[in-house]
């Protein structure tokens, strides 16, 4: 109930903090939990289901009960463990899960109707009447559920990430870990030592043992000094290694700024990816408790935690305490607290042959059978040889034995193994390769044992790496074996808690057993034991032991669940590694981006690219104003569009042409130098993959284009073909998408405009016919490539120049072409133009269509072996009679919707009547009506027919006429002009 002497706190400085609106004082070195205990505060929260008053149970990250809301405003964080929250000046915390206050919680009524909330209740309740679920039960449960509250505001903190590589990762800086790190670092190997605590030392900080006749802190200070001096050793405090992944890769979170009032340099937490050649898991052990009737009152905690608060934090929740234990370790708490002047009401030891460690009352062969003090422990009832008595005390330390923290060792399925000798699970075989347990995590928890274990583990892993490490000098340390008994819980009729956070009792486990939920995985999920944020660290093994007893089997026979990352909860913010906001992923900008931005163009995301949608002119108020204008202007004069984003692959080598001939389904053997050909690539299963053009710039030099979104996959496909299918071909590939700015110049005045930029080269129709290409220079000597190809159906070219000149070239063309009506156009007009022309694009090549459906069935050559040709001819694909058609709205105002499904006129709107779908749609300014492209059963033979486009999701239905997909210039005269 106040501060004791000693402790690792800095009494020269005072920190002020608030809890539930009341101000308190603590010291640097305190946690929120230790400072509250030192201020006489035992009541810290309300339990999840029953809203029972709760205090702190532990002194570490295994804490299930003392969960608070830390900070306020946008940085408010729920479910923060008071036991690992470093105290800082101005810390502001609130208790959770209670209304209106911690002392008077209205939902405490749940406790009194608790039989309704037994394990599995939600599988049996809230079912009747059915209608009540949505309106009443679910909203009510939602309001009552959960523990803390989110701020609901965007996270203002920034996060970071980093990558570390080392020879040895030591997880845990207690006795074993420190010695292991020292042993290894002295060899010069690269070592990382990580500990979740803000101080190194682990349990050494909480025990009163001496090391070599001096306090443990002296020895620690010496070791820390040496460790800090080694340049090849990186010490990471406040860093939790939360997961063991493949091949020695570990995930860790470093709490950089959580302990500071304002996050230092803005970074709150850092996500570290550590690749280690070897790892030592020196993660220590966690104490287990012994369930008894009403064992969850504020003031009842683990004996080791009571001892830690006294030794490390000079805090004790009461002036008079009792201990309940089934092993020798519980007596240490009595001895240490007595040494600090705390009155020991007695040690209740389940073993008849219990031996005290000092001059305090002992009750051998006794158990605790009850407690009193709803808002704070007042007394416990003990039963010895059938007789009961009451012991007055304000705190009870419970010791049921220690469980190695072996979670990381089972992240790769390695099942822990039960040791009857140690009455604990130990790391088993099949753990992550290269990971070796040491110290208490390996069942070697005595101080002397841990020190020696750490050194030996380091020597073993270093020997594995071919290094001879010297055994360090180890101080004299206690090494007494702890005698313990397999006493798991006190039977009785009143509720006895096993999992404090999810409010699971011994009765619930018995109920699960009764309902035949006996395998460990069923027990867990039926009762929710072990499923809270503490992941059952203080309850799993006890629950298993209870289930084993109920089923009459041994613990190994009952089994255990395996653990998955994260070891302790990790915030989503840090998993993002700092990539948030507009820059959360890379953006790709086209060469004309700045130019377009200056002209007020809005941009659309096309994968990672930002592309200009249209170029609004003063007076235009709706996007259709701009887009319609751009489309009309292009077909009437000349339009210019940045098409840089389409993939470009440079293909060279003696066998370049043969190579592309095997990739495209249509023939390329006859492609002459200086010519371009349209190419369709199929997937090996016969489905259309991508289309584009292939230009033959020289005998052994081709440029293959792809659609924007398929640039990556097609390049990958080409490399696969080159390296794996035909490695004997002499062909080399380089992606050149970024290197060249590419502008489409389209419209009846396209040639006239280009003549104004091309340097002294004849680009007349004869010299530069449709589907030709050549290298030349523009604008006074700039190297360029001209391709006469058309996506729009107009007389068109694509002009490529080095990307740094793309913006300037666009500007030049628009300026020089003013009298020709030169109009920049964006993705919207680009789309309208190609739909009007009937050109397939990404929507038509969606991975579900074949060459046959696209109307290109005859393009698939049967005179050569090309990717996909064979399977494109299989019955199943050929049986699909849907083919590409044009669709035109019957009414001027009607909207044609891409995605709508096509049905015969008058057919019922059911899936069975589905005859196709609309793949692309737009308003055609030339036709003055909505149009689309789509796939329709037997489309070629239904020209002129009126069908229905159904859009049941939005409750729409439109009548459309089936027409040729070539709305504009169906004979193709313009492109050849």
């Amino acid at each position, binding site marked *: 109930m106040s501060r004791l002497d000693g402790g690792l706190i800095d009494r020269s400085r005072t920190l002020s903090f608030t809890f539930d609106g009341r101000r308190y004082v603590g010291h640097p070195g305190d946690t929120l939990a230790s400072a509250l205990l030192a201020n006489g505060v035992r009541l810290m929260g309300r339990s999840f289901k029953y809203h029972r008053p709760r205090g702190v149970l532990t002194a570490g990250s295994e804490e299930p009960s003392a969960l608070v809301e830390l900070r306020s405003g946008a940085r408010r964080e729920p479910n923060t463990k008071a036991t690992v929250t470093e105290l800082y000046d101005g810390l502001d915390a609130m208790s959770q899960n209670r209304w209106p206050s911690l002392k008077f919680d209205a939902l405490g009524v749940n406790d009194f109707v608790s039989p309704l909330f037994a394990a599995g209740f939600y599988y049996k309740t809230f079912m009747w009447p059915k209608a009540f679920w949505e309106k009443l039960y679910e909203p009510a449960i939602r309001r009552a559920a959960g523990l803390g509250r989110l701020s609901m505001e965007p996270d203002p903190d920034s996060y970071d990430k980093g990558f570390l590589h080392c020879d040895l990762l030591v997880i845990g800086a207690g006795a074993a870990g420190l010695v292991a790190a020292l042993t290894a670092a002295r060899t010069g190997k690269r070592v990382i030592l990580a500990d979740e605590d803000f101080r190194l030392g682990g349990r050494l900080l909480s025990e009163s043992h001496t090391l070599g006749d001096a306090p443990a802190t002296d020895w620690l200070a010496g070791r820390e000094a040496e460790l800090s001096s080694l340049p090849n050793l990186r010490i990471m405090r406040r860093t939790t290694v939360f997961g063991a992944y493949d091949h020695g890769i570990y995930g860790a979170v470093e709490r950089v700024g959580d302990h500071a009032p304002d996050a230092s340099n803005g970074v709150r937490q850092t996500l570290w990816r550590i690749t280690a050649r070897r790892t030592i898991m020196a993660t220590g052990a966690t104490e287990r408790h012994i369930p008894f009737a009403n064992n969850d009152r504020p003031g009842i905690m683990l004996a080791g935690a009571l001892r830690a608060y006294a030794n490390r934090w000079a805090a004790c929740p009461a002036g008079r305490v009792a201990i309940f234990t089934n092993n020798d370790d519980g007596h240490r708490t009595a001895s240490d607290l007595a040494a600090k002047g705390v009155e020991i009401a007695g040690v209740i030891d389940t073993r008849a042959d219990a031996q005290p460690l000092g001059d305090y009352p002992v009750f051998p062969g006794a158990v605790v059978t009850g407690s009193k003090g709803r808002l704070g422990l007042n007394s416990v009832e003990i039963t010895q040889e059938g007789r009961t008595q009451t012991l007055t005390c304000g705190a009870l330390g419970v010791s049921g034995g220690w469980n190695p923290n072996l979670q990381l060792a089972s992240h790769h399925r390695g099942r822990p193994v039960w040791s009857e000798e140690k009455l604990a699970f130990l790391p088993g075989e099949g753990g992550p390769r290269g990971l070796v347990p040491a110290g208490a995590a390996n069942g070697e928890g005595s101080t002397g044992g841990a020190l020696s274990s750490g050194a030996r583990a380091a020597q073993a892993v270093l020997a594995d790496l071919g290094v001879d490490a010297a055994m360090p000098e180890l101080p004299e340390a206690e090494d007494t074996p702890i005698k313990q008994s397999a006493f798991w819980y006190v039977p009785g009729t009143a509720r006895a808690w096993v999992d404090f956070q999810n409010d699971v009792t011994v009765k619930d486990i018995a109920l699960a057993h009764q309902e035949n939920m006996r395998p460990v995985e069923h027990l867990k999920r039926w009762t929710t034991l072990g499923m809270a944020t503490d992941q059952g660290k203080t309850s799993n093994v006890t629950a298993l032991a209870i289930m084993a007893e109920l089923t009459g089997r041994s613990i190994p026979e009952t089994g255990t669940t395996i653990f998955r990352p994260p070891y302790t909860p990790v915030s989503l913010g840090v998993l993002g590694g700092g990539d948030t906001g507009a*820059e959360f992923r890379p953006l790709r900008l086209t060469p004309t981006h700045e130019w377009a931005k200056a002209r007020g163009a809005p941009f659309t995301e096309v994968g990672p690219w930002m592309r200009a949608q249209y170029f609004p002119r003063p007076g235009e108020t709706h996007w259709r104003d701009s887009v319609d204008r751009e489309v009309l202007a292009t077909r009437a004069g000349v339009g210019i569009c940045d098409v840089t984003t389409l993939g470009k692959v440079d293909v060279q080598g003696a066998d370049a042409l043969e190579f592309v001939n095997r990739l495209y389904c249509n023939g390329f053997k006859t492609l002459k130098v200086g010519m371009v050909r349209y190419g369709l690539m199929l997937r090996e299963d016969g489905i259309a993959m991508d289309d584009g053009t292939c230009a033959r710039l020289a005998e052994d030099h081709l440029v293959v284009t792809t659609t924007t979104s398929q640039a990556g996959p097609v390049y990958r496909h080409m490399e696969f073909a080159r390296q794996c299918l035909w490695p004997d071909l002499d062909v080399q590939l380089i992606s050149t998408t970024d290197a060249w700015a590419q502008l489409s110049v389209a419209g009846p005045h396209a040639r006239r405009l280009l003549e104004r930029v091309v340097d002294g080269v004849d680009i007349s129709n004869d010299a530069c016919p449709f589907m030709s290409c050549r290298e030349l220079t523009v604008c006074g000597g700039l190297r360029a490539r001209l391709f006469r190809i058309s996506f729009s159906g107009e007389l068109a070219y694509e002009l490529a120049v*080095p990307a740094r000149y*793309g913006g300037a070239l666009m500007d030049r063309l628009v300026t020089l072409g003013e009298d020709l009506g030169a109009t920049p156009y964006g993705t919207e007009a680009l789309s309208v133009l190609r739909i009007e022309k009937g050109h397939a694009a990404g929507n038509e090549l969606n991975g579900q269509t074949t060459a046959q459906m696209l109307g290109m069935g005859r393009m698939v050559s049967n005179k050569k072996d090309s990717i996909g040709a064979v399977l494109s001819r299989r019955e199943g694909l050929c049986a699909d009679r849907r083919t590409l058609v044009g669709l035109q709205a019957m009414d001027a105002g009607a909207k044609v919707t891409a995605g709508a499904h096509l049905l015969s006129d008058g057919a019922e709107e059911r899936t069975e009547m589905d005859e196709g779908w609309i793949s692309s749609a737009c308003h055609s300014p030339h036709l003055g009506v909505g149009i689309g492209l789509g796939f329709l059963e037997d489309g070629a033979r239904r020209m002129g027919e009126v069908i229905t486009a159904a859009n049941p999701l939005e409750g729409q239905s439109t009548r459309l006429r089936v027409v040729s997909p070539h709305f504009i210039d169906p004979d193709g005269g313009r492109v050849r002009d």
Partner: protein
Amino acid sequence: MTDLIPSLALGGDAPRAFDAGAIHLAENPGFGIASVALRRNCPPPTPFGVPLPGTAEFTEAEHGLALWTAQNQWMLLAPGRAEEDFAGAVKVEAPGTSVTEQTDAWAVIEIRSSDGEGPITALLEKLVDLDPATLGPGRVVRTGLAHQSVYVLRRNAAELTVLGMRSAGASLWNALETAAAQLAAVRYS
């Protein structure tokens, strides 16, 4: 020569520069760049008189840098030759190989530490998942950095050069700036 005015990869009016503590970033738009790939039965050339580097290495000579990029494939960077047909010049230096212009495929960012190796190591730790031992002076690696694919060259203990694809140059610059600024604000004892 053309009267068109070129733009900078990072979108500014002048090459971008940024200083944060000991780290200095600078955009370098002046390199002429071309890739060279061997064809079948083609012996490795010695463009500009210098043999091409071995796996994961780069050479630096009077004419510029040569980077190993893949088996039988390299990339040449010549300072100050961005406005020329550098690929054409390389074709002459490396006959019988496949040469591809790459000058405007890349944004080139040079990173210098004015405090020795430490800041460079710290920067690499934040940005790339690579064992620093594999990135000593003279080594080049292509890897992921801020979710994009980049080349990282260790020019010497205190200098790195990063090549990222030109179109994503601004995002790369932003990632490097942020990392450098965060480092400058932190002190590692």
